[in-house]
């Protein structure tokens, strides 16, 4: 009995993972490679043949490439500032963590309030006398503004998750390391790059993997700010599944997102690899 207990406790979660994780992922793989019950690559050729595919693919990649590094720097800055604070830490951490609870759709709507034609950006510009009539920012003529709005909304929304992970990670680094470096005359910047950052690698791993994955799944923010004007991979998946009713191509898109996610997770794991003996 005692020997079986841990397995019994794991049983519900394991069964659940089997039915709702492994089985459906198997289904997606099969669905992306079959059409009408026959093995084919037609789903993929249809997907890549559609004019929106490469735009959606590169939009997603560019969004990730711009947003994630900015967020990493911001999250590290936030965490370092908080670390130095003596009073009011928890209050400040709460404020920084607020966007953690905000959905991508809500974040999109928040930034829509700023960028729409009668929105706050126009009102601010008007108040300073820069413009006298409201500008149309989110039109299809100015794709780059929509892109910029999405970048800002994404940075605003999802920096919190990285900040929380990094703050938690910094809390685990023994103070002695930093003090020792200080004794040996290391400057604040040297201590940050030579002591804190290397010891933070496990947290950076988690933060980057989670965040990069979220970036590949970007969807509702884009829809809220630009409708279908700015295609992204997840949005196209949704379009094929729903509007075009073609589950095969939707599954092919899913495979692309899955492939990107797994590939980049492996890259991050490799780049920030921490040898077994070097863990705190």
């Amino acid at each position, binding site marked *: 009995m005692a020997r079986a207990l841990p397995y019994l*406790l794991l049983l519900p979660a394991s069964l*659940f993972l089997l039915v709702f994780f492994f089985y459906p992922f198997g*289904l997606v793989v099969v669905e992306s490679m079959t059409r009408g019950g026959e093995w084919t690559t037609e789903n993929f050729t249809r997907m890549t043949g559609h004019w929106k595919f490469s735009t959606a693919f590169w939009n997603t990649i560019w969004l990730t490439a711009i947003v994630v590094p900015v967020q990493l720097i911001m999250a590290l800055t936030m965490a370092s500032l908080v670390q130095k604070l003596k009073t009011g830490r928890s209050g400040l951490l709460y404020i920084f963590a607020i966007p953690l609870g905000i959905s991508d*759709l809500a974040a999109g709507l928040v930034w829509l309030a700023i960028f729409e034609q009668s929105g706050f950006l126009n009102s601010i510009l008007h108040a300073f006398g820069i413009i006298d009539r409201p500008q149309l920012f989110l039109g299809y003529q100015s794709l780059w503004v929509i892109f910029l709005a999405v970048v800002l909304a994404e940075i605003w929304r999802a920096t919190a998750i990285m900040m929380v992970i990094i703050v938690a990670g910094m809390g685990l680094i023994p103070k002695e390391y930093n003090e020792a470096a200080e004794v040996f005359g290391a400057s604040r910047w040297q201590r940050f790059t030579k002591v804190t950052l290397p010891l933070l690698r496990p947290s950076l791993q988690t933060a980057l993997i989670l965040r990069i*994955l979220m970036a590949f799944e970007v969807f509702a923010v884009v829809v*809220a700010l630009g*409708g279908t004007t700015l295609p992204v991979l997840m949005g196209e998946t949704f379009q094929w599944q729903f509007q075009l009713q073609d589950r095969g191509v939707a599954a092919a898109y899913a495979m692309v997102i*899955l492939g990107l996610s797994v590939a980049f997770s492996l890259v991050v794991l490799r780049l920030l690899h921490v040898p077994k003996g070097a863990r705190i």
Partner: protein
Amino acid sequence: MTAEASDVPVAATPQVAVNRAGRFLFWAGIGLLVLWVLVPIWFLFVNALSAPAEVTGFPKRFWPSFDLASVQFFWNFQGVTAALWNSVKVAVLTMILAIGMGAPAGYALSRFDFPGKEFFRVLVIMTRAFPLPLLALPLAVMFIRTGLDDTVLGLALVHAMLALPFAVLITFSLFSGIPVELEEAAWTLGCTRLQAFTKVVLPLALPGIMASAVFAFVISWNEVFAAAVLTIENRTLTAFLLQSLNVSPLPLKFAGGAALVLPALIFIFAVRKYLFAMWGIANR
């Protein structure tokens, strides 16, 4: 070169000036980041708490007129209350499912050594390397076959899959933080394993478990993609707002956005103490 150097009693050296500039940068940085987080939320609530005519008017005022017409319009809009209620039902079910399955697994991982333990842990961590909302695509078909399509339970099952890895890892770190000696003491005093768990471990772990339950609730409350794929009649609030984005007027969007954000603010406040402890160990 350190902050502590400022108590050196030599005034007006370059060192002091550097420190003063550093101090200014420090507080300016904090101030800017706080504004960066809070001002956009403020704008959303200004819109939600202004009359529809003000929301679409130009130029805007930067404080709300506390006119509840937008909120009323949102509340009375066809399907909104049903969607809100669906969101709550799905989120509560998700919370129960995720904690009901996750907490026992977390307990097993923290208290027992058994063959396959590491395998299970890696498995759970691995699920995070997959874009989970995509699960909704194949499950849509599976649910139609089993009659779970467009039901609250069906969506809650998918959301539970999103929340389960977090629930396992968070409860694992929680239980690991409670000394096993406490349990052993209870056993020697004649408690069964179950009694020791319910009388000793559970009271200690309960606040943390509640925090991870709230986290599961928030995951479900905020999820858009799976909700939009899997529900047609019984939409949740996120799915409802997404599907009506290109037809709904601005006041409805902003009031809806505020309705999504408000519970999140409260929930994050409720679990703020646990956020960092949860992530600290869940990392490793």
